[in-house]
């Protein structure tokens, strides 16, 4: 216990602390909102944060339904977590905190969850064909392509995690360069007062912190769903979608 406490106080990287703080914040808001929504009057439209939560749930259920069919409704909480956590983690740089996305463990863990989702749904939907797929262009008795196929199964993990990590790191390095340059420029006029940074930096913050955040969140969510829907064989996918349409017409 002492060792754990010592690690948390002295050696834990700032990025991990920020990500834990973000998670605690999300948990507190979610618990309070849950209580508020349980007590709320269902006949009246929701207000404030409750409205946002309502919209978020509806949005995630809709996107899941459009891309994957009804079978994936249970994944809505994960989608809501992605949509809330990734923007907050990216934007931590705006508030002067260390952005968790520049610490490779965190994008790797997010990508790992998505990757497990992809592989598990592939196993569930394809069953034995999943194992046959490892030898894919050749027949099953000639397993020459197994190592290559195993590597290609790993590639979504790498591409999802490195994309987020690289984008966040590139943004933070460019911001650091801008602050460095404006600092040495304004040191010609004032001591220790970055006046050019105040003028030049904000548009770059708007691009690297806010715009890039939304694009990356969208890409991560969309790519996760697309990669899962590739793994579902076409007949099953079609069946799920037609079932949904029939239900809609029935209503």
């Amino acid at each position, binding site marked *: 216990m002492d060792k754990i406490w010592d690690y948390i106080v002295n050696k834990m990287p700032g990025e991990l602390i920020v990500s834990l703080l973000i998670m605690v914040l999300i948990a507190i808001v979610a618990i309070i909102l849950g209580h508020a929504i349980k007590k709320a009057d269902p006949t009246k439209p929701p207000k404030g944060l409750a409205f946002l939560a309502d919209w978020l749930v509806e949005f995630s259920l809709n996107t899941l339904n459009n891309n994957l069919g009804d079978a994936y409704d249970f994944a809505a909480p994960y989608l809501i977590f992605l949509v809330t956590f990734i923007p907050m983690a990216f934007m931590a740089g705006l508030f002067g905190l260390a952005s968790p996305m520049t610490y490779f463990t965190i994008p790797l863990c997010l990508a790992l969850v998505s990757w497990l989702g992809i592989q598990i749904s592939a196993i569930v939907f394809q069953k034995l064909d999943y194992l046959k797929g490892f030898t894919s262009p050749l027949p099953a008795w000639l397993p020459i392509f197994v190592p290559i196929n195993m590597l290609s199964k790993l590639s979504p993990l790498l*591409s999802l995690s*490195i*994309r987020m*990590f*690289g*984008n966040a*790191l*590139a943004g933070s390095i460019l911001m650091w360069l801008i602050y460095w340059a404006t600092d*040495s420029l304004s040191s010609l006029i004032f001591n220790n007062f970055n006046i050019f940074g105040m003028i030049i930096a904000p548009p770059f913050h708007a691009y690297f912190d806010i715009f890039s955040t939304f*694009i990356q969140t*969208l*890409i991560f969510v*969309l*790519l996760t769903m*697309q990669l899962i829907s590739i793994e579902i064989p076409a007949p099953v996918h079609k069946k799920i979608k037609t079932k949904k349409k029939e239900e809609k017409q029935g209503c």
Partner: protein
Amino acid sequence: MLNLITLAAQLDVGTGLALIGAGLAVFTGFGSGLGEGNVAAHAMDAIGRNPEATNNIRSNMILGIALAETTGIYGFAIAILILIMVLF
């Protein structure tokens, strides 16, 4: 700036070549930039021909741009790896 110049003066030839390698790795951005521009141009064409499908085309365009961007990000990650290996 002076710090960087004095740092560069202390490096040996192998380190300098490794740094040139890092620069070349970032050059992958050239290809991925061309690809992204191509994707966006064709998406604009598609929107011009079929304005009703704008939302669908936009989400697919962002997906395509993200996939094309991957190679550029790989180059950047490798450049950062080289820099970390060489300088620290």
